[in-house]
């Protein structure tokens, strides 16, 4: 019995230490602050569009203590407009998070981005550079609408939000998942990889995650709009790690957190 108590105490201590260490190291740049090499302009509004989402990768204290890193694939180390080096450079898996919602070098029409073009979503690196290892999870309850050859998976949530997961390994996506119900934070949709255009290693190893909602334009018209996710992802990640010190007021992520780096 004494051994079990000691082992249990050690386990609790280890987990607490791990969470504390993670809290010490987690930081994020302000919403809309792009990579310093990027000449585009970001979307600085702090609205939390998806307050009830869970982080789309398995992370946190209940997720094998795995981390995630939001930053640029293009302007990061090993990126096409980056600082040189390799995509697996450890510096890509450290440092403060950066928003890529309005990232430059992208051609998608983006009404909310100051330059009216942008990235549509945010790029998420997993805990490490390994392919086909880290699991992507359903961000909310809903069902899967489509999986393409390009391994774009479209998840329709019950609240009307539609999110896409890109670049996962095709063999990691359950074969019969289209049309199936998925459970928030539980259903594994696939594993983070490096597929694009139906080609292995067509990009870098990361998850592109974007979400849209249908907006009423009046006169019986409506349209889909990609919504900014950065603040929602920060809160979902903080929740996975049980971080304290972040708050939401009037649907916006409050300023002044010790996690935020200007």
């Amino acid at each position: 019995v004494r051994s079990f108590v000691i082992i249990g105490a050690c386990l609790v201590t280890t987990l607490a230490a791990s969470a504390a260490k993670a809290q010490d190291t987690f930081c994020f740049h302000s919403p809309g602050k792009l990579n310093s090499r990027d000449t585009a302009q970001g979307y600085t509004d702090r609205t939390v569009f998806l307050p009830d989402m869970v982080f789309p990768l398995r992370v946190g204290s209940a997720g094998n203590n795995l981390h995630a890193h939001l930053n640029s694939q293009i302007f990061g180390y090993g990126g096409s407009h980056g600082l040189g080096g390799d995509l697996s450079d450890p510096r890509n898996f450290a440092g403060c998070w950066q928003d890529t919602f309005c990232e430059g070098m992208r051609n998608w029409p983006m009404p909310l981005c100051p330059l009216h073009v942008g990235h549509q979503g945010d790029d998420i690196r997993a805990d490490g550079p390994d392919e086909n290892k880290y699991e992507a999870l359903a961000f909310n309850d809903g069902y899967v609408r489509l999986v393409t050859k390009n391994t774009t998976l479209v998840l329709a949530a019950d609240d009307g939000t539609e999110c896409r997961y890109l670049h996962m390994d095709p063999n990691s996506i359950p074969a019969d998942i289209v049309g199936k119900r998925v459970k928030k934070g539980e259903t594994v949709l696939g594993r983070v990889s490096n597929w694009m255009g139906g080609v292995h290693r067509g990009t870098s190893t990361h998850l592109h995650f974007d979400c849209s909602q249908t907006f009423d334009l009046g006169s019986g018209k409506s349209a889909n709009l990609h919504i900014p996710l950065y603040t929602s992802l920060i809160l979902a990640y903080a929740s996975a790690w049980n971080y304290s010190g972040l708050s939401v007021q009037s649907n916006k992520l409050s300023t002044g957190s010790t996690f935020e780096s200007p």
Partner: protein
Amino acid sequence: MKFSNMLVTWLAALVATSAWALDILQVDWDNKELVSAREAKVDLLSTGNGFEGSGASELASTKLPVIGVLPSQLGAVFAAASSGFESAPKVSNNFRTSGLKLIAAALPNKLEYSISYQHIADGLDAFCVGKRTVNTARVPLPAEAAQMLAKSAEVENDDEVHAAHAQQSRYGLPYRCDVYCSDAKTYPYCKNNAYAVRMLEKAVLLTPGIRD
């Protein structure tokens, strides 16, 4: 702030946002076409019409009219290379109209459904969605952004995603068809939204739904 306080704040925000995040659009149940289809008990969701999978019964019980392209019409949609379709390749590609994995799914509240057209051709997929709820803007959109909204909704052509979207109002509700082109051979089908529009044009009333 303690985590418990943060949680309370967060939940309060969630309740607040949920209260104004959705507009419930209503079906125009008096529409003549809908009335006659209901009287005739139209149901085109059978396997005899090419629909496979387990979603047909689920769709038959939705609280909104279900429209979609019959599998036999998919070839006609994507083989169209006439005026307005100049950007598409002149290929008589092998558009599959049989053995196509069509999947129907509906939300538990029966206020939304989608029909997935998986693997119409190699690197070509699509789905059509009908919904009765529409999210409204949580923050006022800048006027310029609102003007761009319709344009941004039509096509997505960049390295990561090539897709085209078309939407129209049917029976008082928004219906949308999305075409996904995930191979260099099929990118031209997403260069503009002509094929997505064509899907909407070919979509027929598959079942009138259940009035609640």
